[in-house]
């Protein structure tokens, strides 16, 4: 499978997430779109890790190599961080909902200029 396919695919997902962030007003949806972006990155990382692994394997004529493992480890860490972020983020959103009974980011305009 050519790596470019993966690159394009992940970039597409990433951009979709980005567009979502830009076009939606619901804080939660926006947050979800950010998660989508993260997932795109994850997939890309895995693809790259496999690519490097394949190259290494080809170089060492198919002796199984551990090259590229760090990519997937990184993905693992991303997920960890994401989890933590989500807990905090949702806590913040809930806190705000308690106060203004809305999660519409366009209501966030006390602070400006």
């Amino acid at each position, binding site marked *: *499978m*050519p*790596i*470019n396919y*993966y*690159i*394009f*695919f992940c*970039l597409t*997902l990433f*951009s*979709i997430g*980005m567009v*979502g962030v*830009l*076009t939606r*007003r*619901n804080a*939660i*949806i926006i947050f*979800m*779109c950010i*998660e*989508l972006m993260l*997932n795109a990155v*994850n*997939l890309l990382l*895995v*693809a790259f*890790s*496999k*690519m490097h692994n*394949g190259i290494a*394997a080809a170089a060492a004529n*198919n002796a*199984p*190599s*551990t*090259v*590229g*493992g760090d990519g*997937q480890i990184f*993905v*693992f*860490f991303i*997920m*960890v*961080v*994401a989890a*933590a*972020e*989500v*807990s*905090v983020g*949702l*806590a*913040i959103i*809930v*806190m705000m909902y308690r106060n203004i009974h809305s999660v519409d980011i*366009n209501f966030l305009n006390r602070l400006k200029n």
Partner: protein
Amino acid sequence: MRCHSVIYDSMSIVQILFYLLSGLAVFASLMVLLSKNPVHSVLWLIVVFFAISGHYILLNAQFLAIVNLIVYAGAIMVLFLFVIMLMNLNASTEPNQHIWMKLAGVIAGGCFLIMMVSLASQAGDMATKQVLMKDGNIGLIKDLGKLLFSDFVLPFEITSVLFLSAMVGAVVLGKKDKA
């Protein structure tokens, strides 16, 4: 030489699966944006995650595939769902973003995509690179585990701080203070 033939043999199925999953993912993610009702968005997002897990499996990264399902599709998305239910948000609660804003957002994202894609497509060194699909066992739990607890033990330890702070955060923000 041999590796080439390997790829050659299994190309068709893999490719079909690849396109299938990719199409599904893209469609689902679009639906995340387009569906008015947050709950639907969440569900669509879960679909995306499943598709991506599928990709992981395709790439023979089973560990991540599982983790992805458990953490994201399982824990996180449930959390989202839970929050949305709690706030009983539905289609009516979110007024439409201003049309110009939407347009601008789409255009900006599109530009970004175009730039990045053109960048990648011009990356000559990537033109010929192939991804090793189902072979290679670095994605297996055994190997990742080894790696995680040898080279990456320190980061692993340190993430605990992250969770501690997240926990504290939950306390600070979530706990109703008598005042």
